[in-house]
């Protein structure tokens, strides 16, 4: 990853952290150049593009599209890609937060407050169904889930 792509990544993330929305390519420079840079960053697993549109899909741990994982932190609601990323938003913002989702097994609402990096409910389980060496085979599918019972796979 060269300095130009690192700078494009930095500007892409900064835009989303500041505005809450992923940028369009033409908001960061010449659209063709930006899309080419995003493609290189996608191939390096530094961002994730929408496979259909070439627009931003994930700036991990942030999701550019609505998901079942909502996080309130720094006076804004964010979408996370999965349960892991939901905690990751608090971590990356260095902020306390509240995570709201639903149990992947029973569908019941789940809410967790994070204070000083620690969840207030340690009874929940985090499920990782895909082994680590295959996470990037299909990162959109990999999304680990939160729940109240063990669904198989690895649970934390």
């Amino acid at each position, binding site marked *: *990853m060269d300095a130009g792509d*690192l700078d494009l*990544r*930095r500007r892409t*993330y*900064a835009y989303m*952290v500041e505005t809450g929305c992923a940028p369009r390519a033409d908001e960061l420079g010449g659209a063709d150049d930006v899309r080419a840079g995003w493609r290189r960053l996608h191939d*390096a697993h*530094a961002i994730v593009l929408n496979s259909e549109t070439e627009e931003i899909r994930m700036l*991990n*741990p942030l999701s550019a599209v609505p998901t079942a994982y909502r996080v309130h932190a720094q006076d804004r609601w964010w979408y996370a890609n999965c*349960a*892991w*990323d*939901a*905690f*990751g*938003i*608090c*971590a*990356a*913002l*260095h902020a306390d937060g509240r995570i709201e989702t639903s149990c992947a097994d029973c569908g019941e609402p789940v809410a*967790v407050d*994070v204070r000083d*990096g*620690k*969840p207030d*409910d*340690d*009874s*929940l*389980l*985090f499920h*990782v169904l895909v*082994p*680590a*060496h295959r996470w990037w085979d299909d990162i959109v599918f990999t999304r680990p889930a*939160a729940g109240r019972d063990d669904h198989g*796979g*690895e649970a*934390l």
Partner: protein
Amino acid sequence: MAKLSELAHAWWGGRFSPDWQPHTREQNQAILDRLGLAGPSWALG
């Protein structure tokens, strides 16, 4: 969940930093190992 939060902080803590540099696979594996996430399911390959 406490372990997950620990993992998230180690994995994502610097992600919004303007000085972020990509983690190597070895660095990421070291995070998993340090948290006791061992075995084939946690091997990055």
